[in-house]
């Protein structure tokens, strides 16, 4: 009995140590892409077999609760902005001077018709806080040795995924690939990241491909044109007053 207790304790503590590592790795990968605050300019291209469309936008973020984005092109949509404060989200439409409070059902929608969701853009859920993490293997990907880490949603976490698998490079903590699964364990989409470049103060992958699983000949590409990290942004910047005068 004594032996059993000891081995049980050891098993528990070693599992805890591995889980801690996995969480630490995911956190480092997340911090690398996000910083405490960030400002980025991106270009998103929706690619379908017979056409493609490009949307440009800027986004500002602080922590996981404050974010704002502004569409800068194409002209028809330019000037529209989005604000997310914790669980509340608004859009500002300068054409009709109207602030619209968006319902939560909008969050999982493809953003501007892309395979990117509002959740991806406005970071509704946190890959660090809303999931438990475990290392499930190692794999070499695009020349980098990667941890393969499985994320399972915590109970009561308001997340849209049933499971996520990340490939994170072992030394640089680049998140190079991610597979998103629904609650039935069926793969929904894959993110592939590449083109590591120096941005502001660090090297990060600057090219994302979002490939929906059930539509093999369509995808969305996002290119980071500019990124700044840990720049001073006041909390009060993330406001309805500011979202009307973003530029």
């Amino acid at each position: 009995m004594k032996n059993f207790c000891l081995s049980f304790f050891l098993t528990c503590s070693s599992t805890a140590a591995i889980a801690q590592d996995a969480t630490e790795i995911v956190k480092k990968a997340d911090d690398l892409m996000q910083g405490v605050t960030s400002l980025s300019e991106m270009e998103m291209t929706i690619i379908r077999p017979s056409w493609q469309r490009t949307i440009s936008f800027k986004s500002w973020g602080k922590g996981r609760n404050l974010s704002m984005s502004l569409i800068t092109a194409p002209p028809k949509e330019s000037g529209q902005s989005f604000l997310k404060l914790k669980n509340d989200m608004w859009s500002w439409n300068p054409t009709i001077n109207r602030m619209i409070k968006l319902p939560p059902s909008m969050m999982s929608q493809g953003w501007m018709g892309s395979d990117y969701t509002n959740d991806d853009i406005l970071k509704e859920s946190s890959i660090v806080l809303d999931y438990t993490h475990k290392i499930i293997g190692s794999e070499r990907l695009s020349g980098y040795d990667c941890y393969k880490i499985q994320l399972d949603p915590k109970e009561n976490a308001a997340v849209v995924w049933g499971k996520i698998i990340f490939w994170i490079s072992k030394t640089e903590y680049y998140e190079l690939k991610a597979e998103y699964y629904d609650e039935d364990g069926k793969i929904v989409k894959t993110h592939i990241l590449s083109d590591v470049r120096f941005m502001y103060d660090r090297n990060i992958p600057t090219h994302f491909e979002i490939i929906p699983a059930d539509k093999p000949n369509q995808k969305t590409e996002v290119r980071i044109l500019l990124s700044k990290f840990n720049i001073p942004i006041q909390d009060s910047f993330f406001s309805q007053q500011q979202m009307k005068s973003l530029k």
Partner: protein
Amino acid sequence: MLLTLTSILFLIFNLSLYSQEQKPCSWKLKGYLNDLQMVQVNKIEDPWIFDNEIHNRLDFTWNPGKIFAMGIGMRNRFIFGQSISANPSYKGMLFADNGLINMTWDIYSSTSFAIVTQLDRAWLSFTLGKVQLTAGRQRINWGQTIVWNPNDIFNTYSYFDIDYPERPGSDAVRVQYYPSSTSTVEIVSKWNNLGKITVAGMGRFNAGGYDIQFLAGLVDNQDYVVGTGWSGNIAGAAFRGEINYYQPKKNFTDTTGVLLATIGADYTFSNSLALTFQVFYNQLPSGYQPENLISIYQAPTSPKMLSFTQWNLFLMGSYPITPLFDVSLAVMYFPDLNGYFIGPTLNYNIKQNIDLNLFIQYFNGRFKNTGPQQDQDLYFQSFLSALRLKWSF
């Protein structure tokens, strides 16, 4: 006048190119050019009325720093077809300007065409910290719901006007104060073309996931108004509402007021199907009925009369078949008229900045006959179809 404005805009545009080299984005010029071909008919055997409109919009804003900003919005329209020749009052409607200062110009017109230019935005704004003052022609939008907006007392508009998504502006002075990142307090004074003042204050805040607002004021120097509006959510769906109550200034104590109230919900399913529902009650003078249904295409003349029947129900479904092609179907039901409206639209994004839109609007209803044959209801129907090709820049 048009030449002067065009050359001013051209000069500004050039300046903007110049200024972009040093400080990007302080100037912005955008707009569109579209052609709208319309056909209208009441009963199918009646004469069909064809109209075409070439419409150019220019919106330009200048935001040189944190304090000062300005904006001009200009609408240039060349309209030709049978409505102008058949309906003598149509041109009057085209050239009407509801603002204190007339900024709508008949550039050139004759019996079957009109060229009309209008400035529907022309404002200056000054911001000092959390206080912003905006003066001039501007759109003040206090609406919370989607179709009928009782709270939107400054710029009434017609939901059925397919070629004016920007909606009119009003000549006003507006002071906004932002106590926090999700609240505003504002006071607005507006003057209409008869010099009548509308002055009102509004406060909006966010609590428990709801945006809640209260307003009070005087409309057209005629009626006192109090109102409230909200946007929140129930089970993932947006839940919105607006209520306004008007009491005449004259004989304040011995008259009854007018109530406008609406609630609505909208929900987007995971397959991107979006549903919008709204029910609207507009207390109307007893015995009121519209002279004709054509009047509904014009912006309501008063925020007290936003619909032509007391009860109005709206349901709309919209669905993007592809990111380039979306369809929607709006249906309204007017129990008092035993009538309905059906409005399907198709939107196709042909190229990055070129869109093709098809709008169909069909009305059907019965009015009480106030003429000699009072026992027979008047049956009314109206059909409109419009195809628009739009280039945005």
